[in-house]
C-alpha cells in the first residue's frame, strides 16, 4: 500500500536511482510556471543592448544541472510546451529544444559532476545558443521566409551575451528554491572515484555490494 502511494507521489531520480521527493516535483513545477509568466510579463518587455533576456532556457538548464537528465528533460518539455501554448506558437518547437537543454545539462551532472562555480555561466551561454540556433534551424526547416542574415546572427549572439550575464543569478535562485528538496546539497561535490565513465558506485558502497551489509565471519 505504501509502495503504491509512493509511486503515485514521486518519480524516479535517474542520478541515484532513488525516488524524487514530491516536494521537489512541486517546487520544479512552480519554478517552471513562474519562469514562463515572469518572462512573458516583464523580462521580455525590457530591452538590453537591443535584445531581450530569456530566462526560460536558463531555468531548464539549472534544473537539469541540479536534478539530473530525466528531471531536466521533463522540465524542458513542460516549460517549452507552456511557452508555446501561452504565446500561441507552433506547439512542440520550444519543447524539442528545451528537452535537449535539460537532458544534456543533467548528463553533465551525471557524467562529470562539475564543481566549478562558473559552470552555470558557460552552460547558460550554451543553452541560450542551442535555443537561439535551434529555433532558427527549425524555423528554416518549417519554411519561414527569412534569409540567414548578419543581423540574425548578431541578435542571437547578443541574446547569448545577455543570458550569460544573468545565468549565475538565475541558477543560484533555482538552487536556493530546490536546495532543501534535493536529495543532497549540490554544492557538496561528490568525490570522483577512479573511473572513465559514469560516476563509480565506489562512493556508494552499499550499491557496489548489491545492497547487502558486510558482516564479519
Amino acid at each position: 500500500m505504501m509502495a503504491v502511494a509512493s509511486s503515485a507521489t514521486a518519480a524516479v531520480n535517474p542520478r541515484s536511482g532513488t525516488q524524487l521527493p514530491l516536494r521537489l516535483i512541486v517546487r520544479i513545477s512552480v519554478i517552471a510556471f513562474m519562469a514562463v509568466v515572469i518572462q512573458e510579463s516583464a523580462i521580455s518587455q525590457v530591452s538590453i543592448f537591443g535584445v531581450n533576456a530569456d530566462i526560460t532556457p536558463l531555468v531548464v538548464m539549472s534544473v537539469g544541472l541540479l536534478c539530473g537528465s530525466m528531471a531536466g528533460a521533463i522540465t524542458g518539455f513542460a516549460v517549452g510546451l507552456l511557452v508555446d501554448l501561452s504565446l500561441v506558437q507552433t506547439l512542440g518547437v520550444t519543447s524539442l529544444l528545451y528537452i535537449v537543454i535539460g537532458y544534456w545539462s543533467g548528463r553533465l551532472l551525471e557524467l562529470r559532476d562539475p564543481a566549478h562555480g562558473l559552470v552555470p555561466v558557460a552552460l547558460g551561454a550554451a543553452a541560450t545558443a542551442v535555443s537561439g540556433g535551434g529555433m532558427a534551424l527549425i524555423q528554416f526547416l518549417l519554411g519561414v521566409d527569412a534569409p540567414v542574415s548578419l543581423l540574425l546572427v548578431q541578435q542571437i549572439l547578443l541574446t547569448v551575451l545577455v543570458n550569460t550575464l544573468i545565468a549565475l543569478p538565475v541558477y543560484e535562485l533555482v538552487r536556493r528554491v530546490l536546495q532543501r528538496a534535493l536529495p543532497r546539497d549540490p554544492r557538496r561535490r561528490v568525490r570522483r572515484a577512479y573511473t572513465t565513465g559514469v560516476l563509480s558506485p565506489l562512493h556508494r558502497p552499499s550499491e557496489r555490494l548489491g545492497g547487502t551489509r558486510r558482516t564479519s565471519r
Partner: protein
Amino acid sequence: MHDKQVRRRRAVLGLLVGASLILLTAYFGESPTSPLHAVQRGIVAVLAPIQQGASTVLAPVRNAAGWVSDTLNAKSQLARMRSQNARLYRELAQYQGAAIQNRQLSQLIRLDRTNNIANYNPVAADVIGKDSSLWYQQIEVDRGSADGVRLGDPVIGEQGLVGKVSTVVGGVSFVTLLTDPSFAVGAEVLSGASTYAGVLVPQAGNPSSLLLTGLNPQAQISQGQEVVTSGFMDASNPAVRSLYPPGIPIGTVSNQNTQDSLANNQQVQVQPFVDLGSLSVVQILTRPTPTTQRAQVGAG
C-alpha cells in the same frame, strides 16, 4: 540496476522527443479552427488573468529595468537627437504654414483623415506580454472579443501603425507586429504632390526595417519621405474596403532605389516610426463604420 536506469532514461527521452515531434507535426498541418488550436486558445484564456496580474505586479520592476536600459542608451542617442531637433524646428515652420492650408482644403473636400481613426471605433489596450524570440513578432494585449476586437483588426500606437490582431480570446488578444514575416499592408509614399503605392512587408531577417515593394520603377522617391497606409474602398461596393484606414503613418524611407530583380519593380526600405520594442499602450481599430470615407488619391 545501471542498465535498467539507462533504459528508463532513454525511454523517457524518446517519449518526450516523440511527443514534441507529434505535436509539431499535428499543429503545423492543422487549420486555425482545429482542436489543437482550440485547446491552445483555451489555455491562453486560462493563463490570461494570471499574466494580467503578473504584468501589473511586475510593472514597477519592468519600469525600473526599462529606465536603466534607456539611460544606457540615452548618451548614444543625444547627438542624433540634437541634429534631429534642429531639423524638426526648420520643418515645423514649414508645416505650420502647410497645416493652415491643409485644414482649409480638408474642409473643402470633406477629408479629415485624423477623424477616420475615431470612425474605426478605437479601443485602448495595455500591452501585457511580448514574445521575446526573433521568430514570432507579436505582443499580447488586455482587450479581446468581449471588447469588440476581431481577427484582422488594425492596431496603432502613438506614432503610427503597429500591426494587426492575429488571435482573439475572451479578454486578451495577440497582435502580430508589422515586422512579423506574415504581415503585409498596402502603403504609399508621400512624395510632394504625388503618392506612390506599393505593398509593405517586413524585411526578412531584419526586425527593425520594412520593405515597400511593387513600386512603379519610375517613381521619384527620396530618403526621408513619409510612408502611410494607402487603404482603399471600392466605389461601386463600399463593403469592399481595406481594413486599414488610409493615412496611418508607418515610417520614413531609409534607403531608396533597390530593384526587385524578379518583378522589375522598385522597392525601398522603410524605417518604422513606432519603437516596437517598447510598446506599452496601443489602440485597436475595432470596426470601420459606414461613415468612414476614403479620398480618391491617384497613385503617381
